[in-house]
């Protein structure tokens, strides 16, 4: 059994919109393990992204406790969370969130400029197969390429964890598979703990562990005995 990297206890997240309280997370107890690729699956609004934000230090839980390794994130200051993100976490988003005024290389440099032990931006881009597109602006790249730049940007800091929110959500299946290949490759080559949110049920088949969400709660956790390669996944 690998070491636990994330642990949560009774995490809730309540959005107070004045008239109604919305429970985005409603008492989540969870354990994630080092080096694993975990898929969080569930319909939209089930609380996956909220949990990912809390794990990534982008948001605080309303109640409950969260640990990263031995460090408790629950009441960490804003400054502490910034350092945590800077040193340990890589993010990949559905809409890539590249800075349009920066080239691929410069988008990656955004991260290498502030991380303690980054790999060169060029190396990160080579890893995602974009060695020849480094000086292109986002507007000059396809969606799949943009997402690969985003992944290169996330891994350039050699993060311990890679958090991906619907990384294939905006892509067609062929491009989506290429992106998933890159994620699996990173996970295997560097042992980076990877969490992928999706509502595409097929993707679960490449994961070590699958966690199902429903109405802000974990409804089921499943461990895959056999994993498929992304190229074997079709949707």
């Amino acid at each position, binding site marked *: 059994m690998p070491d636990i990297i994330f642990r949560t206890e009774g995490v809730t997240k309540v959005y107070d919109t004045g008239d109604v309280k919305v429970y985005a997370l409603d008492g989540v107890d969870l354990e994630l393990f080092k080096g694993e690729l975990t898929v969080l699956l569930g319909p939209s609004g089930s609380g996956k992204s*909220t949990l990912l934000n809390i794990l990534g230090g982008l*948001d605080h839980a309303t109640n409950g406790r969260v640990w990263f390794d031995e460090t408790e994130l629950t009441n960490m200051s804003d400054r502490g969370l910034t350092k945590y*993100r*800077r040193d340990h976490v890589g993010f990949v988003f559905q809409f890539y*969130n590249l800075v349009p*005024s*920066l080239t691929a290389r410069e988008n990656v440099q*955004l991260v290498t400029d*502030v991380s303690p032990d980054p790999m060169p931006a060029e190396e990160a881009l080579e890893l995602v197969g974009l060695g020849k597109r480094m000086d292109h602006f986002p507007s000059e790249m396809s969606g799949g390429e943009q997402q690969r730049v985003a992944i290169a940007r996330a891994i350039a800091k050699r993060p311990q964890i890679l958090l991906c929110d619907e990384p294939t959500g905006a892509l067609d299946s062929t491009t989506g598979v290429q992106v998933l290949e890159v994620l699996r490759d990173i996970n295997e080559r560097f042992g980076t703990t990877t969490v992928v949110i999706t509502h595409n049920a097929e993707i679960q088949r490449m994961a070590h562990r699958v966690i199902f969400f429903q109405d802000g709660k974990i409804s089921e956790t499943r461990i895959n005995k056999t994993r498929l390669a992304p190229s074997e996944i079709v949707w």
Partner: protein
Amino acid sequence: MHALDIKLLRDFKRLWIQATAIALVLACGVAILLTSVGMYSALSETRTAYYERNRFADVFAHATRAPLSLLSEIARIDGVMSVEARISGEAILDIPGRTKTAVGKILSYPEASNPVLNVPLLMTGRFPNPLSTHEIVVNEPFAQANGFVPGDSFSANLRGQKRDLTIVGTALSPEFVYTIGPGALMPDNAAFGIIWMPERAAAAAFDMTGAFNDVSLALSVGMTPAPVIDALDTLLDPFGGLGAYDRTIQQSDAFLDAEISQLKGMAAILPPIFFAISGFLVSMVMSRIIALERSEIGLLKAIGYSNTEICLHYLMLAALIAVVGVLVGWLAGTVLARTTAAQYAEFFDFPFVIFRVSYWVYAVSGLAGLLTTSLGAAQAALKAARLAPAIAMQPPAPPRFKRSFIDEAMTRMRLAQSTVMILRSLLRWPLRSFLTSLGLALAVASVIAATFINDALDEIVDLAFYQTNRQDAMLLFAEDVPESALEDVRNLPGVLQAESQQFHAAILRNGHLSKRVAVESRRPGNDLSRVLDADRNPLDVPPGGIVLSERLAVHLDVQNGDSIEVEFLSGRRETFSVDVTNLVELHFGLGAYMDFEYMNALFRQAPRVSTVNITLDYQQTEALHAAVKDTPRISGIVEMNENRRSFQDTIEQNIVVMNTIYIVVAVLITIGVTYNAARIQLSERARELASLRILGFGRGEVSYILVGEMMLIALLAQPLGWLIGAGIAHLMTNAFTSDLYAIPLVLKPATFTLASLVVLSAAFASVMIVRRRLDRLDLVSVMKTRE
């Protein structure tokens, strides 16, 4: 270079039109600050250096005829460091080739040694031979205006003796940096000159051997003039002392001082307005950028950039705008200051101008620019820093619109939906709409503040030349003459009408407040030089009373009916208590008026006159001037037409420059505000407007929403602009008012109309430039943009 810095530079490049518009407004502020402070320090430093080098005196006095033996007593007055006695007088000059008379102020040049005080600085030639009776040095501007070089001659009427004088040199003196002839309003260097004549010759000409009638004193450091003035007055009293005075009343220094304080006022009033506007523009643009870059901010935070780093990133963008603005401002300000310095050099007669805009002025203006733009950006940058990353990554919630009574009213008025959109947007962001309006209002105000001066000057000219001083010319006498001289004047060629007027220097006192003025008197019913009451009706001063100008009344803190002390500085130097019977409006000088008979009664003398006001048959002007040149007792002739013309010419020249600058500035502000506001509107509403286009709205209808809202804001700005403009005009009249002159607050509808037209046209042009982008709106891609 860090990736974030690259982003900064690329953002700046993308925003360059908006950034330039802001930078130019900022540059205006920096340039005006540099120019006014630069000129202020140039003038005051030059003055200080010139006064020190050429030992400008601290206290001045005139007497009828005082013995030279009095000098040692004067030198013993406590606090007096050095004394210079001179002989001074005025003479009518006959300049070859000039039909009109010129007036010369003659000053003796010491025989034994160099002058101790008010040392003339030789510009060309040499000083006169002490034993010569005809060698003189003249002030350089007079020589230049008349085309004189050393060796040239002209003749002068020295108390009845016509004498040929030969120029051997030209000089400048700290006493005559600004030279105005008697009775003139503006310098006329061709008609008025300073003549330095060897002491011996001057003494012979003015019958002053062994005596003096003009004395200057330098005081020890830290000594205040008041006690010295009192002691000097006591000493000179038996010899017809006319009252000593300090630099504040010395004509040249008083003008210089008025100019210096105007520059100070300009530095204090105008630049802050420009800084405020650029700060506001930056804040407007930065808020929008941050709204647009919301998800990028979220991303930067997710990557691990700290709040401080993000805040600084956006502040740096504002700083870049400031850097451009400050650099342009420095450049423009340096050029402008140099140009103005050259103008001043023409206006004031300095032998040198210390022109050096100190580094601290550059530093302060640069810092002020940086600070205001940073302050403008601060709120937006802090908002960026405070955005919670998880929320930043989500699209912003749609703005909340709520129905209010205004919506009810709009429904009832059956306004078109597009008009409702315009109005709702104004009401949804009331602060932003107000601030945009305020920016445009300041542009309107800037035009008003510059152009109202035109009307104010028309008013000054009308009151001074067409209503109060309606004479064609004034004949000035060297000394007061019996009123019978009026008959002689009437017999001069070309004189149609002649009226007498008398002046006496006096100190007016109310408690501890006092002011030295010339009290004027004239006969009741005199029609040429008149005193006008508040309704502009001629006013005859009742015997036993005194009429004061409003500014003088304010200075002495007296009102109608109060009584003041009048201490005459000539004759028996008696003091009388007199009732103030009326206050009048006056723009030149500080007027005080008495009845003619009453004043002469106070002096216990038969009626005498100091000047005669005349109307002229202009066909005979030449004959009149020829006659005056040969009339010993007349020391000068002032033609009011020329006076008015030189006043208008000088002022008009300055005003055209000033109006142009301010209108350009107003247009820049308007473009800066409107262009930015319209671009922001467009970026906020791109989806909305594209949706309308997809729904079938025409380009015109969609443009209406954009152009309509901006122009509505511009229209709303007008009354506010008029109000602020009137306020600034009021401040300026106060700042420009001195003992020498007052600028009246004259605000005419045409001024407001012009200001509004300038700003509305510039606003319309700017918003139309932005409107062109609407035509290029790519409907499909706009709809795809995630927001």
